[in-house]
């Protein structure tokens, strides 16, 4: 894959169109500054949360004197805290991501998604970080909200190369342990690993109160498998090769693929992971627009 100019990762038209729609989380986040996202703590926003009894030590300035006048009891009025979002973009950089077809490579599609998301997150005042994972965590850029941080992220994405075997699952466990505050973790991968292990890793992340998004990137050729002549399939992550007549194995292949997807979907439902299957022949801006819109809708209905 040719080196990408990091400026080409962002399309101004796409970005300007997507900026109108904020990226929200489905669960409370723990930020270090005030922001637009729900926090698990009480704060000073205009959003009323609850009343609670006064206990010694509480700041008497927060006493609700109107309630005291009516009930002769001391109550404190509490408000929702709003904090900023820490978004981790986890990009699968294993060799399987360099799968290419007439629609381009999966990796370039993923980097565009990641770059645009990073830009959107930082633009809305949240912090974004990047993790490039193959057989190990190759890049680990902690989240920052500095607009200059976007440049670093874009440069890193432009220089990233798929290499090595998939080590997504250990990386996810490692990240789950490493990231302390609650964060939004967006995983961009083809997820060609054991679905049970992926589900387990997602559960681990969810256990740590992270909001997890699985962006499952599949190519149209992989989904349709519509070859009509014998093909020698060479594994991208090993020297293994198979010569077969696709018409003979298509049915079983699709069956296995559907079972894999179904298992991932089921695991995502159980762990409340946001699973999204993305076929790479679809424009990435449309995918992101759907993603952002749906997140807002989910939040509105209490999802």
């Amino acid at each position, binding site marked *: 894959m040719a080196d990408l100019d990091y400026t080409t990762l962002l399309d101004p038209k796409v970005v300007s169109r997507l900026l109108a729609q904020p990226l929200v989380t489905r669960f409370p986040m723990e930020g270090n500054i005030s922001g637009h996202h729900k926090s698990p703590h009480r704060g000073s926003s205009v959003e009323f949360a609850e009343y609670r009894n006064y206990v010694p030590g509480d700041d008497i300035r927060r006493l609700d004197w109107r309630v005291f006048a009516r009930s002769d009891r001391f109550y404190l009025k509490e408000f929702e805290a709003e904090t900023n979002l820490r978004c981790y973009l986890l990009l699968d950089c294993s060799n399987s991501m360099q799968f290419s077809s007439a629609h381009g490579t999966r990796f370039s599609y993923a980097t565009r998604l990641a770059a645009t998301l990073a830009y959107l997150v930082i633009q809305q005042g949240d912090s974004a970080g990047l993790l490039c994972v193959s057989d190990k965590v190759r890049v680990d850029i902690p989240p920052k909200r500095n607009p200059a941080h976007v440049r670093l992220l874009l440069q890193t994405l432009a220089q990233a190369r798929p290499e090595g075997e998939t080590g997504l699952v250990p990386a996810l466990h490692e990240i789950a342990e490493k990231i302390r505050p609650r964060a939004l973790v967006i995983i961009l991968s083809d997820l060609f690993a054991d679905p049970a292990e992926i589900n387990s890793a997602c559960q681990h992340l969810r256990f740590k109160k992270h909001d997890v998004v699985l962006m499952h990137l599949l190519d149209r050729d992989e989904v349709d498998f519509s070859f009509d002549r014998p093909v*020698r399939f060479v594994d991208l992550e090993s020297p293994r090769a198979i010569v077969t007549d696709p018409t003979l194995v298509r049915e079983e292949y699709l069956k296995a693929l559907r079972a894999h997807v179904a298992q991932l979907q089921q695991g995502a439902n159980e762990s409340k992971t946001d699973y999204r299957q993305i076929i790479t022949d679809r424009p990435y801006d*449309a995918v992101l627009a759907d993603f952002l819109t749906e997140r807002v809708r989910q939040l509105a209905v209490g999802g």
Partner: protein
Amino acid sequence: MSFLQPFLLWALPLLMIPVIIHLINRMRHRTRQWAAMRFLLAATQSSVSHAKLRQWLVLLFRVLAVLMLILFLSRPIAGGWLGWALSTAPDAIVILLDRSASMETKITGSDLTRRESALKLLSENARRFGNRSQLVLIDSASLVPTELSRAELLLELSSTASTSTSADLPALVQAGAKWLSDNRAATAELWIASDLQGSNWQPADPRWSSVQERLDALPQKLRVRILSFPNASAGNRSVSLVESSRRTRSGQAELAVTLNIEKNSPAEELLPLTINLNGIQSQIDLPIQGQSFRWRGSINLPNEPEEGWGSVSIPADPNSTDNTVWFVYGPEVAALPLIVAEDPRAGRILTLASSPANGARALTNLVRPSDFSPTLLTNKSAVFWQGPLPQGNIASNLYHFVEQGGTVLCFPPLNATGSGKFGTLSWGISETAPPTNEFRVIRWMQEEGPLANTDEGQQLPVEDLLLKKRQLISGGKTILAAGGDGAPFLVRETLGKGAIYFVASLPLRDWSNFADGVVLLPMLQRVLQQGSQRLSAGQLWTAGTLPQSQVRWQPVQPPTARDPLLNDGIYRANSQAIAVNRPSIEDDPTQLKEDECVRLFGSTSAQLFQQNSNRTDALQGEVWRLFLIIMLLFLFGEAILLLPRKESEPDPAPLSRRQPAGIA
């Protein structure tokens, strides 16, 4: 199994085409970098058994389809395991063998005759059934069933040897059907070997309907297989004797002979005729034209001895049995007629006209019909009968007279009142011509018969006959002369060695100018001459018609002749000599058509096999249809195997479908 186009079997290596295409297809694969290898591996492992089986089946079907195509184009004829013996061995096989003279024609490109080839083929195929089937042979000459202990006997038995007879196929099949109904075999087959000669099969014979009824009535399932030899051998000629009679011309005894020569091609040629008279050969070259040629000539006879024999031969050709005719002759006998007339005037004219040609005093008898007595037939050659047709004992005596070689010429009665028949002939209505427009005879047979041309080739003035009255003739077998309106004037029916003639008018002034004598005289003399063989010491017989007797006939010529009942030649017993000739119907080139032949067996399953060469697989039928059907079945099976399998279970996790681009 063998093939009519065996050279196409060289295309059998083309069977490898589907395999080669398959291998090339596999070798010409594209290489594709693939990420979702885990699913591909799972698919390959789980579908290896079923998919590979299907793949091999598809390949096998393609190879077999190509094989069937090649076999189909090679026009397979099935025998052995597939065709002739597709069914199990029948309990009985009745072989009906046509031993007629025409079966002695050699097959083109072979030294075997049709009969020999048929015997070889039948023997070969019957041997395949071993002892499982009872073999019965019925030959056309004897019509007697003979049980065979083994198939090889077909080649050894005297009852399968050649004959000079004709075959009566209706009688032969009847004999086969009778044996089947008498013996009631559970399953039976009728194998018929014949050259489908029309005169032998007689498709118009009413006996065929009774044959069909008899075959239909058989309780067991019967299959009829007919081994035929349809194509006439090129270059075959045949000669047959139509007439021969001794006469004296200018003090020289001679034998007047009429020969009929048939050949395949109409081209003109010079045919050398070899005449053998008592062992002394002479030759004349005869220019002949057309496929059927009739020759009338005379052979000078020595004064001493008065009796002798002879033959006329044509050069050797594919059928050696139809190249020679035989004759015998004896002392000249006076040809005397018996005139039976109800009208004395007619009787007198007939008496005058039938006087001996050499001017000798007439020794004829003239009687009225009521005075007829069988004793009057002694020493008579012909009977000229004018009056009501003879009936009862008189008719029986006259039939016997004709069968012995005599002739009967019937003139119309003065008043045709009865509806009786003589032979198969009878008188119809009487017709009177307008005064100035008499009936005329415009067509007559000039090659032979009573109105034939003279030895010098001159026509008789038959067309000068003016008939004021005529009596129509019905039921005629052979019309020798007829008027312009088709009404017969002279009709002949052959019976035994002699013949019955009916003539439509009387030699009376109020009937015709017949009495002028220019036609009547030669006509009566010829009828008289024809009947004289009844009294001749040397007799002509047709093979198969000589009655059984205690006489021990010794062959004279050819020395190898075996049986005067079956084989032609000259035979002698004591002082009597006979000449046996092949039946003239054996020269009839008309052949039965295949469908016509099969139709003769009605609802019984009959299959015709043609034999054009000396191959032993001729009893096999073409089975290309079978291979065509099998090929189509293989292609159909291949198409079914290649059909995409229907989804058996609902999709648990539908994969994303194509969506329109540009959703924002």
